[in-house]
């Protein structure tokens, strides 16, 4: 009997060790211009000294999902996780090239940008369907969090039972209201940060180490 119990324990330990080693792919999702790439760059730079992609104030700068592998993040209590960070194009329900013309882009260039951005959203949703193990959902805390797309995305993430950390970004701006985001999504951890200035970024790493274990 004793032997059986011991064998069972060994098998379960092996099983545990095997699955625990599996690396999580963490996707940074959110509407365009929320600061996803800025955060991805900061995470990658802080833990590997590298960068993931260019940022710009024109929406849909990131039009292909970009991945950086093997990033080990440690929390202060010794929790440490190794993850792949996937920076995704901003998810939105409408992409119109006219929006880019306001930023001084030529029409041809704007139309191409819109097409690539549309492909990018489809790709980001495809990743979410098959490959992502956890989500950092990024919001601009100067904007209304109750936008349709956010409610839908959080609903989709919840229906897939993926662990999620909501980031209320841009708290360095004067009209930031991260509290609004907290009350919009009380069921999930919300970390207010400034990806640009690096404010509160340590707290985010703690929360990531805790949530994506």
């Amino acid at each position: 009997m004793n032997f059986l119990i011991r064998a069972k324990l060994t098998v379960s330990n092996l099983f545990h060790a095997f699955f625990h080693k599996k690396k999580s792919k963490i996707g940074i999702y959110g509407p365009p211009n929320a600061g996803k790439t800025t955060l991805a760059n900061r995470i990658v730079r802080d833990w590997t000294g590298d960068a993931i992609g260019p940022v710009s104030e024109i929406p849909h700068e990131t039009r292909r999902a970009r991945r950086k592998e093997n990033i080990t993040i440690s929390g202060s209590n010794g929790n440490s996780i190794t993850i792949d960070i996937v920076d995704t194009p901003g998810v939105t329900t409408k992409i119109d090239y006219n929006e880019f013309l306001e930023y001084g882009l030529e029409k041809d260039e704007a139309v191409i940008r819109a097409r690539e951005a549309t492909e990018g959203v489809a790709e980001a949703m495809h990743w979410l369907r098959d490959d992502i193990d956890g989500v950092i959902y990024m919001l601009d805390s100067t904007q209304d969090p109750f936008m349709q797309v956010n409610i839908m995305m959080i609903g989709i993430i919840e229906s897939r039972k993926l662990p999620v950390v909501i980031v209320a970004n841009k708290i360095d701006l004067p009209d930031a209201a991260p509290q609004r985001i907290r009350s919009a999504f009380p069921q999930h951890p919300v970390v207010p940060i400034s990806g640009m200035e690096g404010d509160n970024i340590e707290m985010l790493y703690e929360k990531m180490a805790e949530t994506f274990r």
Partner: protein
Amino acid sequence: MPHKCTKCGREFEDGSTEILRGCPSCGGKKFLYIGESKRHDDVLEGKTIEELAAETGTEEMEVAETPSQSRKKEEVRDRIDCYEQVEAIRILEPGTYELNIEKLARDEEMVVGFGKEGKYFVDIFSMGKHKKKQ
């Protein structure tokens, strides 16, 4: 004295809690508290509720919508929209796209719509592929 919905004229008994969620018939949020003498004037004399309000000097009462209620409503509307649409992406014109993110998240199959209505592109190849088990 009954409450009258200012939008459709439906009446509710004094103290009715039903109206707190808005009028069940038309979803109206404004109600007029109206005296017995004027109660049927809207029908009998063809007056609008506004005229009645002005005559009686009673203010219309507005039922406030809680954020969770309006959020739920939006969610329901989104779901309906999603089921009504067959396409994952609609191309309104070159460079202008509408994306159905719920559909993109749910299905492997790709249907693309063109223009305002009626024209679709069906990617048969995407439909022939085996679905991944969840």
